[in-house]
């Protein structure tokens, strides 16, 4: 024991003259800048997808409806309520948040003698830390779920322009699994889908590699899954939770991946008619488009006898005659319809109601009639010379039917919707075949970013050489005698007036002549209702030129229903939804009738 060992401990006393290191005011000490304190939620950004609830390992989060947040497209109207009797401030909820709305402040003090008080909806129940800018936010991007779409093969513009081959390859099963893995299964998309398909469920099937199970799920809500997997307007993807930071899930391509991955012959094993007794009742469906065939599919599976009358020589309606082959190949459509036929649906082609058979006959012979005639008449701009213009829908039908159409070197298309793109791109292909070069001009009233056509349609059209002039109003089809020489347009300043009515205003100084040997009008279609006959037309109630129907698709006549484009939506998936709706309504009526008989 040395003297040093005895004395050196006393050196500690030098600290007695130092100031204490104590924090003087511990009550107002802020947490660090990225401290994970109490939650904040930006109500405007939050979409109520529930990913936070899903990932919370403490079951601390409940999704609850709150005042002032209504459910709507892409927003469930629910908001996370956090139980601080469970939370562990791991911030996984912040990391996984699809929109980045959920963050954490650096506030950390909450003391209460009531144990039930520790529950709140951040952003709704006002808290002192709601506006605190400091606190935890995830660094750069979301890492816990994928943000970029899986790559998919497609034809290059130069390879696809000279033919009508399908452009996109679709996901391979492996790619599909990778893409499906990104889905957080919130189900926000289901509400947006007109047919309310079980999107998260079939994506889950893809993820598990169970494509056959996925197919069965698809057919529960959509007998046109193959078609929809290609040409659906995929409104679902506009409400996808993943789109807020990164790409939306490619829901449409995943659907297609399911249908592509299952062997064509397996369809008939997987989609079988349910074992239900025949009812002996029969239904006539007018028009073999998506709405009519969906109705037929549903009713046939219920045991009714269904006959579909189609005016043209092949079933499919607008899917066949309106959509070019490069988007929806005909063999796919044929296969799709054959699955429906396997349910016992009889399709009689070349049976134009009004010619071969009349409405009265149908009404008499069948227990119910469903009108799903679609919109097969093109609308006209009615500008000078428009009688020389072609209707896009008409042209498309002729191209499909194999009828020769005139192909001039320059074509001008009026319209900014999908039909305009379809005809523009179809004509471009024909030009390429005929002349080796493309000369298509597309003009539309809207600005480019307001076009009704799908974004990728526009982009692909441009890639293929179609020139698009947005915000141009057609004034005249320039004629040289009987020959179309071009299209004269003015710059559009406004499409709608102050009241929101359609009243385009032009800048007359900015005039252009688009030289063209053909002008195609693609500004909308209408239904050909001549088949109804005068008596029936009189009897039915109408609404702005359309047959009035109730929410189930029934017209004012108890035996007549109407579905599809003719009465409602603009696309296949709406038609499918209509078909389902009408089928249920018809089924109810038939069941009531049966009961009466018994």
């Amino acid at each position, binding site marked *: 024991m040395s003297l040093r060992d005895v004395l050196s401990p006393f050196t500690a006393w030098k600290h007695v003259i130092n100031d204490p290191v104590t924090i003087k005011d511990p009550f107002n000490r802020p947490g660090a800048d990225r401290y994970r304190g109490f939650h904040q939620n930006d109500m405007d950004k939050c979409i109520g997808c529930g990913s936070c609830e899903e990932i919370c390992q403490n079951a601390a989060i409940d999704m609850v409806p709150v005042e002032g947040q*209504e459910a709507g497209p892409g927003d469930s109207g*629910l908001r996370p309520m956090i139980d601080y009797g469970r939370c562990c401030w791991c911030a996984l909820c912040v990391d996984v948040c699809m929109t980045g709305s959920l963050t954490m402040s650096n506030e950390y003090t909450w003391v209460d003698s009531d144990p039930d008080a520790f529950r709140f909806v951040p952003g709704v129940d006002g808290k002192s830390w709601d506006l605190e800018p400091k606190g935890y936010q995830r660094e750069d991007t979301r890492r816990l779920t994928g943000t970029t779409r899986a790559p998919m093969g497609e034809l290059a513009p130069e390879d696809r322009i000279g033919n009508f081959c399908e452009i996109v390859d679709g996901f391979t099963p492996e790619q599909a699994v990778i893409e499906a893995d990104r889905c957080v299964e919130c189900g926000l998309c289901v*509400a947006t889908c007109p047919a309310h398909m079980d999107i998260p469920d079939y994506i889950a099937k893809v993820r598990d590699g169970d494509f056959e199970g996925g197919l069965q799920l698809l057919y529960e809500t959509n007998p046109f899954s193959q078609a929809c997997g290609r040409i659906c307007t995929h409104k679902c993807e506009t409400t996808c939770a993943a789109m807020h930071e990164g790409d939306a899930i490619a829901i449409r391509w995943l659907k297609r991946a399911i249908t592509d991955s299952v062997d064509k012959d397996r369809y008939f094993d997987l989609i079988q008619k349910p074992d239900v007794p025949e009812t002996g009742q029969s239904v006539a469906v007018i028009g073999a488009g998506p709405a009519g065939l969906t109705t037929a599919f549903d009713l046939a599976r219920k045991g009714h006898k269904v006959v579909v009358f189609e005016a043209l020589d092949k079933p499919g309606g607008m899917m066949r005659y309106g959509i070019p082959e490069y988007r929806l190949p005909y063999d796919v459509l044929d296969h799709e319809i054959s699955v429906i036929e396997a349910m016992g649906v009889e399709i009689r082609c070349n049976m134009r109601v009004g010619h071969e058979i009349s409405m009265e006959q149908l009404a008499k012979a069948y227990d119910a009639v469903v009108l799903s005639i679609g919109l097969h008449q093109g609308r006209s701009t009615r500008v000078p010379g428009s009688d020389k213009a072609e209707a896009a829908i008409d042209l498309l039908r002729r191209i499909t039917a194999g009828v020769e159409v005139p192909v001039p070197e320059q074509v001008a298309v009026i319209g900014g919707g999908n039909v305009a793109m379809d005809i523009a791109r179809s004509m471009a292909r024909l030009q390429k075949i005929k002349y080796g070069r493309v000369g298509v001009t597309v003009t539309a009233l809207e600005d480019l970013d307001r076009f009704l056509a799908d974004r990728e349609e526009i982009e692909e059209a441009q890639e293929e050489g179609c020139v698009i002039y947005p915000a141009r109003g057609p004034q005249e089809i320039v004629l040289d005698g009987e020959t179309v020489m071009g299209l004269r347009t003015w710059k559009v300043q406004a499409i709608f007036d102050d009241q929101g009515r359609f009243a385009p205003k032009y800048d007359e100084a900015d005039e252009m002549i688009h030289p063209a040997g053909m002008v195609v009008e693609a500004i909308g279609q209408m239904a050909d209702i001549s088949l109804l006959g005068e008596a029936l037309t009189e009897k039915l109630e109408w609404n702005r030129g359309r047959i009035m129907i109730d929410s189930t698709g029934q017209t004012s006549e108890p035996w007549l229903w109407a579905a599809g484009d003719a009465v409602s939506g603009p696309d296949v998936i709406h038609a499918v939804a209509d078909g389902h709706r009408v089928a249920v309504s018809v089924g109810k009526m038939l069941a009531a009738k049966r009961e009466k008989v018994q």
Partner: protein
Amino acid sequence: MRHILYRLKDRYHLGTPVFQRDDLCFVTVKRFELRAILTELRDVEGFTHLTLLTAVDWIEEQQFQLTYMVNNRVANLTLALRVMLDREDATGDTIHDLWPTAATYQRELREMFGITFPGSPRVDEEFILEGWTDLPPYRRDFDTLAYSQQTYNDRPGRVTHDPKTHMQKTLYADYPKGAK
């Protein structure tokens, strides 16, 4: 590592070794040879450090896997021996005389998995749990959440809503769900 396994392979029944890393290998051995292998590893091959002893419940195969992980400190090699036990009659062989610490592991396994080790000191004493009357908790057929819900009270008043069904109810309650 490989040559050690070659040496052992001559005399014992070894399963296919899995080389997880260069210094970490898993191999399945037969229960009746375990003791001999462990002794040899410890005394001859220099695997003197018992890193851990634990069990895995493969309930689908009705088996318990005992993992004996031994480590050679000089060569920095870790060898894990797997022994499969029948789940119905789970009895292991005590190695507390090779490594006294094994007694603790065996006590834990006895309590948490219900695997007995006859002869191990204090093996039947309570170790972690107190007054436990249920299934050994680490067994796969013991559901901790169900047990917890049946035993303790949660604070009431919590309801959650699924976004999908909530939107279905508020937005399109009257839409017939397809052909379902």
